[in-house]
């Protein structure tokens, strides 16, 4: 999208994919807050405290790109999430027949966690309310951590709460009294700078700052093992909350646990399609079968493919991969007569080798290549499926096929070779979809769970031991103002004539942190352990405020 206009965004220190993400997310935020998409840039610019020509230009360019994008979508007859909301609100909801149908269909309305509702949802509830027989809204007045996704707690309060009869549920089933009290204090101190003191107790365990992030991850891993082996906790009693929840964190802690026979699962979706060797093999085969796409697979990938399908040792696989890539005009499996080939492939593998070689050859000779998802299905059934394929691999293949199908369905309308595009983006590392099955496994298995704060709060989980990593990191207070967006301005409760000041930003950051940390602590039943490192993953000094609040409140 950002590439549509060459030379746009001069003066912005950012990547084009990042800007594209910000623009699409702006579109969604505008739609769910009933803000016309053509006014996004102006609204954001008007709210700026420091107005500069260069910024005006940037917002103007963003608006232009969005306009072109919308136009293109209309021409091609596709719509994205933001447009879907807009169309629904503007076309369907204003249609009398549809409205009557809707009212007839719905008698009872139940909505949970309304504090995380986006304005459009609130409006929809409001719209239905007079017509339904009963309306039950679950509301956690302490919530509101979903603001990054457009939720607007303030709007919920304004529009819904007063209209409802309120049944209060004051008892907490997810944490003990002291934690309840501590989390409220922490909230007050952060949000309102109320001076509070809380007498330190062993259930709130502050680990002294470690020098390096790697020290911290290892110490956390070791502490988890102690909790399980010496203090009688089950792995599933423990949740590790990290703002990164990246593969390094997962691997470092995971390996320590593994040595003791335990496992950690990451609730945050971080996996790329090509992370799974099986999916990677499918993609490599696709590259080999479609020379016309002009994307030759890499040597590492061909070697991995050979290892998977022919079960040859890595050294010989690598030699063979070299031969495959050396073939002209395009990489292919060499003829069996090729000198020394039989020895390398192994006699017992020759039959399989020949089968694959011929399969690819025949496929390449087909007049019209299959759509990429059909190709994956065919390869999966005819080449890869064997007794040794695990259930996990089958799920991965299924996810790949599903993603490909959806992608092809949409992108082919843009008059592009969608199959080729899919291979390209898969290589670029798009994330893999997550099946309900996998999620279910994460939530219910006996694993230590790792998650980002918001992903954890969005799940129904609570835990006996809550471990917070990197509490001196700045990531706990993300800034709402980004290069070309601002979540507080691009929402319904924002007054167009106001200026978004630094004081507001500071208040908003503190508010977010206060809400987030209180909600997290209230999901902690018995023990809270914090970790921090002086230096960040990049070797820079950590100086976030959360650790300081802990220090301020806790007294010996």
């Amino acid at each position, binding site marked *: 999208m950002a590439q549509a206009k060459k030379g746009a965004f001069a003066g912005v220190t*950012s990547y084009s994919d990042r800007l594209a993400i910000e623009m699409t997310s702006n579109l969604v935020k505008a739609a769910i807050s009933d803000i016309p998409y053509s006014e996004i840039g102006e609204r954001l610019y008007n709210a700026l405290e420091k107005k500069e020509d260069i910024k005006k230009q940037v917002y103007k360019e963003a608006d232009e790109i969005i306009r072109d994008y919308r136009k293109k979508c209309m021409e091609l007859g596709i719509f994205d999430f933001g447009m879907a909301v807009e169309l629904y609100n503007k076309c369907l909801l204003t249609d009398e027949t549809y409205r009557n149908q809707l009212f007839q269909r719905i008698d009872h309305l139940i909505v949970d966690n309304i504090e995380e509702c986006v304005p459009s949802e609130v409006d929809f509830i409001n719209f239905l309310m007079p017509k339904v027989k009963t309306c039950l809204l679950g509301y956690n007045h302490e919530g509101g951590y979903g603001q990054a996704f457009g939720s607007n707690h303030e709007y919920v309060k304004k529009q819904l709460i007063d209209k409802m009869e309120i049944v209060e549920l004051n008892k907490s089933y997810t944490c003990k009294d002291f934690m309840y009290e501590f989390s409220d204090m922490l909230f007050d101190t952060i949000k309102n700078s109320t001076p509070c003191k809380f007498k330190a107790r062993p259930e709130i365990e502050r680990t002294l700052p470690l020098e390096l992030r790697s020290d911290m991850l290892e110490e956390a891993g070791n502490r988890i093992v102690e909790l399980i082996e010496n203090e009688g906790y089950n792995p599933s009693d423990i949740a590790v909350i990290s703002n990164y929840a990246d593969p390094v964190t997962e*691997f470092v802690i995971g390996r320590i646990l593994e040595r003791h026979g335990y496992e950690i699962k990451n609730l945050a979706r971080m996996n790329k399609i090509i992370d799974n060797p099986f999916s990677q093999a499918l993609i490599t085969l696709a590259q080999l079968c479609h020379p016309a796409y002009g994307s030759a697979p890499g040597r590492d990938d061909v070697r991995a493919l050979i290892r998977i399908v022919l079960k040859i040792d890595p050294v010989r696989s690598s030699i063979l991969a070299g031969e495959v890539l050396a073939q002209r005009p395009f990489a292919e499996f060499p003829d069996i007569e090729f000198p020394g080939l039989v020895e390398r492939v192994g006699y017992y593998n020759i039959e399989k080798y020949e089968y694959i070689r011929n399969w690819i050859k025949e496929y390449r000779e087909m007049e019209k290549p299959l759509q990429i998802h059909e190709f994956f299905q065919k390869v999966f059934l005819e080449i890869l499926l064997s007794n040794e394929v695990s259930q996990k691999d089958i799920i991965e293949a299924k996810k790949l096929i599903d993603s490909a199908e959806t992608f092809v369905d949409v992108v082919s309308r843009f008059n592009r070779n969608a199959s080729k595009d899919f291979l390209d983006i898969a290589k670029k590392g798009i994330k893999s979809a997550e099946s309900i099955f996998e999620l279910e496994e994460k939530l219910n298995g006996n694993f230590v769970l790792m998650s980002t704060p918001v992903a954890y709060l969005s799940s129904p989980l609570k835990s006996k031991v809550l471990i917070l990593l990197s509490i001196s990191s*700045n990531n706990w207070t993300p800034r709402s103002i980004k290069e070309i967006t601002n979540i507080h301005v691009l929402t319904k409760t924002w007054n167009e004539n106001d200026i978004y000041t630094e004081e507001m930003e500071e208040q908003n950051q503190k508010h977010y942190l206060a809400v987030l940390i209180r909600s997290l602590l209230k999901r902690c039943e018995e023990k809270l352990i914090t970790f921090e490192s002086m230096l960040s993953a990049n070797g820079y000094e950590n100086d976030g405020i959360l650790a300081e609040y802990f220090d301020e409140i806790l007294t010996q």
Partner: protein
Amino acid sequence: MGLRKGQKELVERYRGGKCAIPAIPGGGKTHCLSLWAVEMIANGYHKPGKILIVTYMNSAVNNFKQRISAELQKRGINGSKDYFVSTIHGLCLQIIKEKPDLIIANEEFEILDEVSKIHLISSAIDEWKRYNHREFRLYLDMENLSSSKIGDVYKSWHEKLCRIMLSAIGDFKVKGITPSEAKNKCKSLGRDSILSWASDIYEIYDRRLKMGGYLDFDDMLYNAKKMLQTDEHLLEKYRKKYSFVCEDEAQDSNYIQNEILTLIANGNLLRVGDSNQAICGSFSSSDFTLFKSFCDAPDTTVYSITQSSRNTRDIIDLANYFVKYVRENHPVHECRDSLLPQYIEPVPKDDPRPNPVIDEYGIKAAVFESWEEEAGGVVDQAVQMIKKHPDKTIAILVPTAWKMSLIIDILQSRKAPFEQLDNTSGERNKTLKKLGRIIDFLAVPEDGEKFSNMINECILTGEYDSTVFTELVDETETVGQRELLSEFIKKYPVEKILYPMGGIIEISDVPKELLQTKIWKDFTDSLDIVRELLEFPNTVVEKLILFISEKLRFDREERAIAQKVAGDVRYLMNQNPRWRLSDLAFELLSPKNMFNYFAGIVWDLKGFEPHPGVVTVATYHKSKGLEWDIVFLTGLNNADFPVLLEDKFMGEFWFLKEQYKNPQP
């Protein structure tokens, strides 16, 4: 506390306002500044904010941190949140991270290290050259060049141009000139002006920088200053956060750094430095007169530290003589004021740490005909010294990295134990190199050479052959175990070693003399690890790296570096899906690579301690603040240290037309 003149006054008296501490080399600045900070914290004088200490290098940051925290601990005070030690860039980063949107930057902006900066400038020059080939050749002495040399000359000129552009772009940025402003200003200079080229290249460079989501070091300084100047709220926050601002190495400060610290300081500003040690002026924008004028300001309290116990009387006399000579007899009059009349005094005789008294070697000088002879001669002497004084620490200091390489070559050929003090080599780079060797092998495991390199450098790192270093270069040697093994595995098919068809290695193929060695046994024992590495799926490269670090039992610092590489790899692969294992290996194995910076930070945490019996090789710049018992100073000649304006300097470009070679002012 053993405080000396000047130190005592600082620690006991300085409680606010402007204060300058001019300190001679070896005066114990870090020691007394740390003690001062502890004294302030212990008494709560620094409240309500923190003490900020800004110093020049990461190693110094850690040195300060360790000293302050050790002293606080000793006194039973928990004051870790009461002070913050940082480089100026660390401080600027902190400031910018507060509000990256003010400069329209993504919050995850990356900092372009010096190595990548050169790459980026070089590619910007390439782009510029495509449309400006005439200009590129304009100053080259094409007539006197043979056609066979043209390629090399283009390459050299390109490299030199990189350096020129680096400093020109730095100058633009420090002065807050944007690319379009630069272009406008340079328009009237015409197409033959190098400055006008610089404005073109600056534009290309800046565009690439922004699209990559990068800020370079100059951007950080400039933007931090701009943010503090334009955003009162932010400035107020920093003034509240730091109630005392201390600048170490103040003689190396530059204009922007000076402004930033003065802005934040809000009155309480302590500067420590030595104008006679201002060594950065020749290659950076630092300006030692800033410190001098701070000292001279009427409202600045000055406590001078003049005593040092680092050196013998003879060395102190020599240093003082040098200062006096420059001030009174320097042949170029304008240079006489470059050193201040600040002389080193030895400590009183009853000082608990007196000046060393050494009769055995003292000060010696030698004259050589060429650098090659000099390097050889110096290494000879150093080797002699190790033997004669095995308990002493020894250093060879060189003026340039280029000269360092010959010294290293000679030390290596004599098998003399040495350590290179350099961001991009030796210890600091060891982990990256290890990872590189392994990944290089994993990328092409059938390559015997790579297999041998990995085995020798990463797996079988023990001593197999005696390591007595030789005094002569070409002494004949018997073939060692390591060599026997290397010769064999380089040539023998790797698959037959790791995955022999019959299950075991064909013994009849292995040289008999190798079979009997210890290294062969260790080698065959280690093959399981190699196989484990090879069989680990390499689709997720970051996991592969962490797996390597686990299997090779990396120590704490090495693990930190491996985790950093693993974290960055994911990002790199996202940026460039065509990246392969071999590309990663290539990056890791290049002496200057993108991970050096972090590796440097980690190794700096350990601090540098010279070891007796091991020769430290360092540039003069890097040796600052360090101590050895015996030091060889090399390259003391007009080319490396020009005295007269006619002296040729190392910056001279021989391939340019005569009139441009070494322009006289």
